[in-house]
């Protein structure tokens, strides 16, 4: 029963229910294939979701809207640099991560120096980053090196490699959030920035590192996604703006900051992928499919509130 009180359990329950409903449509024939697909694609959502979670934990108004543009720029530039040469795989990865970190620095520089709300700063910067991505090669789609393509689409004992990468990152994020002093500080800042400052936390350093971490993960995700899907496209990150926020909040982290959890991100990422699959499988048209997606999201959050601890009240 205490499990039912965990904020993240509802995303997992929803994912499992939706999964069962989908394979029911084919009398179980699709179970393994669907699970594999779900874990593969959830991996991307998880990677950006983890970064977004640390940023959202920083408190109201903190959200990184530059994730899609960062993914695109990191994907385009690194693929262009590697130019299908296997030997360039590591430099390519380094460049993707470097671009992410750079965007993260720039994000926080704007937030700090100009004192503009993060939501606006990251949005504004994302336009600039997107332009840079267009400028670098005008959207030409270069193929990834053979080994990287094989790795990103491959499996290990039936588990998608990407899911393994995302799981390792999840574990690291969990340790960081729940066990490390840095995670404590991020959480403290999210509850009250002035109180955290007076408690002696180096608030700017911590916030900066959260933004850099988030953008770096976005860069990594862009790199993996473009290797996975055979090249970087200018609009390849677009979907991940909403997804990165949705997996965090559906996963049971508080949108007001200061109270986040990691397991929910996986549950929510699987859920978001599976819900679309389910509705596609049942043959819903675009309109009803979107309506049902929305209603199911609300139902999940409602169910969580009926059983979980009351979130209001001082």
């Amino acid at each position, binding site marked *: 029963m205490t499990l039912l009180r965990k904020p993240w359990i509802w995303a997992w329950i929803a994912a499992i229910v939706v999964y069962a409903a989908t394979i029911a449509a084919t009398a179980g024939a699709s179970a393994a294939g669907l699970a594999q*697909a779900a874990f593969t694609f959830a991996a991307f959502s998880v990677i950006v979701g983890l970064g977004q979670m640390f940023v959202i934990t920083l408190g109201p108004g903190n959200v990184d809207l530059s994730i899609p543009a960062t993914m695109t720029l990191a994907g385009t530039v690194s693929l262009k640099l590697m130019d299908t040469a296997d030997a360039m795989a590591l430099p390519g990865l380094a460049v993707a991560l470097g671009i992410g970190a750079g965007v993260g620095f720039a994000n926080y520089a704007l937030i700090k120096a100009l004192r503009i709300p993060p939501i606006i700063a990251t949005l504004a910067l994302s336009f600039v980053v997107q332009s840079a991505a267009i400028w670098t090669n005008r*959207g030409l*789609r270069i193929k990834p090196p053979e080994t990287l393509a094989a790795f990103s689409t491959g499996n290990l004992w039936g588990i998608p490699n990407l899911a393994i990468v995302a799981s390792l990152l999840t574990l690291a994020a969990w340790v960081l959030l729940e066990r490390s002093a840095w995670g404590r500080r991020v959480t403290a800042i999210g509850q009250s920035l002035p109180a955290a400052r007076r408690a002696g936390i180096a608030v700017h350093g911590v916030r900066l590192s959260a933004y850099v971490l988030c953008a770096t993960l976005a860069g990594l995700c862009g790199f993996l996604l473009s290797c996975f899907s055979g090249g970087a496209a200018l609009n390849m990150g*677009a979907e991940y703006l909403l997804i990165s926020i949705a997996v965090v909040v559906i996963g049971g982290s508080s949108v007001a900051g200061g109270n986040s959890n990691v397991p929910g991100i996986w549950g929510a990422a699987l859920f978001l992928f599976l819900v679309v699959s389910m509705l596609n499988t049942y043959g819903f048209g675009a309109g009803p499919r979107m309506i049902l997606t929305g209603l199911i999201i609300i139902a999940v959050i409602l169910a969580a509130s009926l059983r979980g601890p009351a979130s209001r009240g001082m």
Partner: protein
Amino acid sequence: DTSDKRIALSNNYAGNSWRQAMLTSWETVTGPAVEAGIVAAADAFTTAENSATEQAAQIQNLILQGYDAIVLNAASPTALNGAVREACDAGVTVVSFDGIVTEPCAWRIAVDFREMGRVQVEYLADRLPEGGNLLEIRGLAGVFVDDEISAGIHAGVEQYPQFTIVGSVHGDWAQDVAQRAVAGILPSLPEIVGVVTQGGDGYGAAQAFQAAGRPMPIIIMGNRQDELLWWKEQKDASGYETMSVSIAPGVSTLAFWVAQQILDGREVPKDLVVPFLTITQDTLEANLETTPVGGVANVEYTLEDAVAVIEDAG
């Protein structure tokens, strides 16, 4: 004589390779035209986000800047009518292409998107006389092009009732979105013999089929270089056969010349039609050769081509 006339390109989206190719073609054709003194200016304008309202505002600004003609790839066939009307009232010539507008005062260079959908099924019927199950990949819900192509596909299926569409997903004209959507529905689908698409999504579908270990159906391609390359590889390896169809981005240059002709005083019918660009098993190699790596198969138009199109229509 149009040497003192100024023409603007109003574009609502720059986030994919098709639009980038469109902008590049515009540059390569209008640059020399301006140098040669045929027109005084031919500037390209792009909105930050793909939205009709932002494009309407852009058109209003172009009116204010005193352009003599606006060449328009519209975000919506109807939502810009207000702004287009204002342009016409201000004496500005408006020529729409690809995304055309319904406002009667504007010219339209249309592609028969419906036919583009129908020929896909026709081709499949030719290849697979006994028919079978089809998967449909659609574009962005609520957009004119998506609705038209899909309507054409459904008309085709009615014409060749040996086919049934057993699944339909939205790929938003993006490889990675299509891949994600197909991977989600594929496990629950029966054997698929053909995939009908809207362009820009064929490679993603192929990747999803490959990852799921399913037999490769006939996937209609969309003239993207990576699609063509993949097709070529399959063709060389196993004699894979398919077709590819899409609209050539260079149609922007046709629209430019049409606008120039109208400004020059020529009588031009309001509705012109351009053929879509089809690539077949035989023309694959030739097209692949001329398509830039990572780009889109393209045709650019000259003044003479434009005059021919106008005369055909007249």
